[in-house]
């Protein structure tokens, strides 16, 4: 993955040094994330981020000459859904092309998936998807479907969805 400015990605916090966190985004370098780049963070009021946490943020600086920097806040200072991703759930990797296909405005896969059962998904443009459903089984099913969507045709997909809907 090549970091691009403005892209929303899922990163894993690998280290905490002084005022910044080192976040692995799947690129050639770990991105840096300042602890002030969260909504409502001040010097006294530090965000609750530990090593190993999942972070959903966007790149503020990302070019080939510098280390990428990310933030969990938008230009107005609001979080807009970014920040630490909550407990439980499963993170897995897919290809970048699949993410772009899934996030396209007219994506059938997502609509069908959404009808199955209550769930939450976070897509990172760096090829990482985090899913969460009520039971572990459902979460795993979801992960498997999304991974397999890469190679299936539309018909095969519909078969699988109908089988799932029955069970």
């Amino acid at each position, binding site marked *: 993955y090549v970091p691009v400015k403005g892209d929303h990605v899922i990163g894993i916090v690998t280290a905490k040094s002084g005022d910044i966190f080192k976040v692995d985004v799947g690129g050639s370098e770990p991105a840096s994330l300042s602890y002030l780049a969260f909504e409502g963070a001040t010097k006294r009021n530090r965000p609750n981020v530990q090593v190993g946490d999942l972070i*959903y943020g966007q790149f503020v600086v990302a070019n080939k000459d510098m280390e990428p920097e990310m933030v969990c806040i938008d230009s107005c200072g609001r979080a807009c*859904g970014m920040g630490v991703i909550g407990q439980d759930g499963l993170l897995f990797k897919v290809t970048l092309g699949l993410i772009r296909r899934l*996030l*396209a405005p007219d994506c059938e896969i997502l609509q069908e998936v959404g009808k199955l059962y209550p*769930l*939450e*998904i976070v897509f990172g*443009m760096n090829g990482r998807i985090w899913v*969460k459903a009520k039971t572990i089984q459902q979460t795993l099913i979801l992960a498997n479907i999304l991974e397999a969507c890469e190679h299936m045709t539309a018909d095969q997909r519909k078969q699988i969805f109908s089988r799932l809907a029955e069970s």
Partner: protein
Amino acid sequence: MAAERKTKLSKNLLRMKFMQRGLDSETKKQLEEEEKKIISEEHWYLDLPELKEKESFIIEEQSFLLCEDLLYGRMSFRGFNPEVEKLMLQMNAKNKAEEVEEETVELDVSDEEMARRYETLVGTIGKKFAKKRDRANYEEDENGDIKPIKTRKMFLKPQD
């Protein structure tokens, strides 16, 4: 009879800022370029032919977000996470340039009641700041609202 010769202004005068405010931006640019061309001997320059900057019609864009009009990355289905669902509506509505319908704030207190409360409030607070003499002037209305009397005792100049 009036002299029809234009007064010749010196170049330095024309270069002053107040003389240039009237000029168009184009003429200004041209003047600037001409000034840059006047190269003194101290400046080093390349002995190349003049190159004009062409307007480029090509924009480089590295992010896929704009090229393919992608949706927002955080999603929740069937009410698993209501905050994320609200976000989804907001962010995707921004993309489609639709107006967000969610901005209707539900009113707890109606406008009329608010106006009524304000009326009485003005009276009670005004009473607090009125001098002792004036406090007696505050009447009680039938509804129990306090209305201040606006007539004040002014100084009357004695008539000689």
